[in-house]
């Protein structure tokens, strides 16, 4: 069971703002989904090594050479706000 307080806590971790209606809905739906996935407890995985990637990928190296990269103009093209060739954002440091 994931209660509404937990839903609000998770939403905060995920930087999501939810309406009260969404909080209520997700509390029920996430509880249902978590109940379903707990099915995995039926399988014994005591001595099993976890798999992150299904193909054997070892360190993939390349030569440390400078290559052409995107121009500043292209990088900033989609910026919602920009100033002096940088992304502009609202104030980060809050006043007392």
């Amino acid at each position, binding site marked *: 069971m994931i209660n509404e307080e937990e839903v609000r806590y998770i939403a905060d971790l995920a930087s999501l703002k939810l309406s009260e209606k969404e909080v209520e809905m997700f509390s029920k739906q996430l509880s249902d989904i978590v109940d379903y996935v707990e099915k995995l407890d039926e399988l014994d995985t005591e001595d099993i090594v976890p798999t992150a990637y299904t193909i054997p990928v070892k360190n993939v190296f390349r030569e440390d050479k400078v290559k052409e990269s995107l121009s500043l103009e292209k*990088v900033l093209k989609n910026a919602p706000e920009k100033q002096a060739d940088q992304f502009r954002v*609202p104030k980060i440091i809050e006043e007392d």
Partner: protein
Amino acid sequence: MKLYKCSLTELKNMIEEKRVKLQDIHESISYRTTHTDPIIKAYVNKNETYNIDELDQNNYKDTYLKGLPIAIKDNISIEEIKTTCSSKMLEEYVPPYNATVVEKIKEAGGIITGKTNMDEYAMGSSTENSAFFPTVNPWGKNRVPGGSSGGSAAAVAAGMVPVSLGSDTGGSIRQPASFCGVVGLKPTYGAVSRYGLVAFASSLDQIGPLARNVEDIALMMNVITGRDEKDSTCVNRDYPDFTEYLKNDVKDMKIGIPDQYFDIDFDQEVRESVLNAVEKLKKAGAKIERVSLTGAEYALAAYYIIATAEASSNLARYDGVRYGLRAEGADNLKKMFTETRQQGFGEEVKRRIMLGTYVLSSGYYDDFYLKAQKVRTLIKNDFDQLFTDYDLILSPTTPTTAFKIGEKRDPLKMYAADIFTVPVNIAGIPAISVPCGFDQKGLPIGLQLMGAHFKEEKLIQAAFSLEKILNLDIKYPALK
């Protein structure tokens, strides 16, 4: 003969033999799209950067794809063409670079017709989660085309384009291919570069082709596979010419049928159609045996932990800072993040971010994420073990034919539509969906063949044989 009805291979041959002009092909496709897409709504954006009148087929003379048309799912980046992922978050986003598959298609002389509709961020099984509009299944106007690559499947099925690219994280190529009566291949994880594909679940995502026959799938696989230094998960190996495996020959092929998959309660007409195909494969000389695999329901449970965990991490980048939507009027950074994400993400995307954040959160990681990764090992080992004895494993692609628009409101019921396709992504193996019949409503049924890692050629050979053996008369859906 209407050109839009021809396959990619037929068109390629006709151009090589100088029996048709490239412009006429594009005219036919464009005409068909103009009259069909207002009903089907497969495209999110058409490619307006090329002009049919100015196409010169001599420019494509020495290329593999001869200037032929291809549609691309809207989560694959094309420079200077909007890539929206069918999300409000990226509604105005114009990528500053091409995905590697797009580079490969361009180098091979393919012309991209446009970007196809999808479930927002590829999260869904019906294309109803598009923030813009749902796509309609060409075989039934009140039916979903499947998803998340619903636009790519519907465009091909309706004759708006001979082939398209989709992406498959848990069945997003194969399930819509099955619902729309076309062929769809999910390649081995690592066979096709994912550079420029908007990330959903990075250990599962893979790009692959959809087409109206297996031959065209082989052609497209020749174009899109191969190593890419911009994607470190893309494996360095040689790929065969896949068209050499277009042989009607399943003699001595060993195919396993997993009891645990057929024990699931699924649609009777789908079951009969798939088993009918099995009998025909047997008659053609395939050795078919019942086998045992970890139940698909465990793969589905593991999938919804792994996929959402990875999604919650991948989608953290949508913060309104560098590109995409930014909520207006937020006076501090935290507010800007949360309000941007509130406005930009749809319900299913939020649900998956929430679930993914939950399973990764402190105190739950071992119970959910680690457990799912261990189950992943079990499922992968199971498949690996079977493939030492068997060439292929066979199942239905989907438990039902295309369901009605608006029918599945409960997320768990929607997730269950992926039960047969998800284990393939969990194990990283390749699989293909081919049409094997129709139900009484006239809706297409798909059969799935799964192969060992990097054995796409076996899938192609068996699927091509099945296509010949069944010899289905797939007429163009009557669009009303």
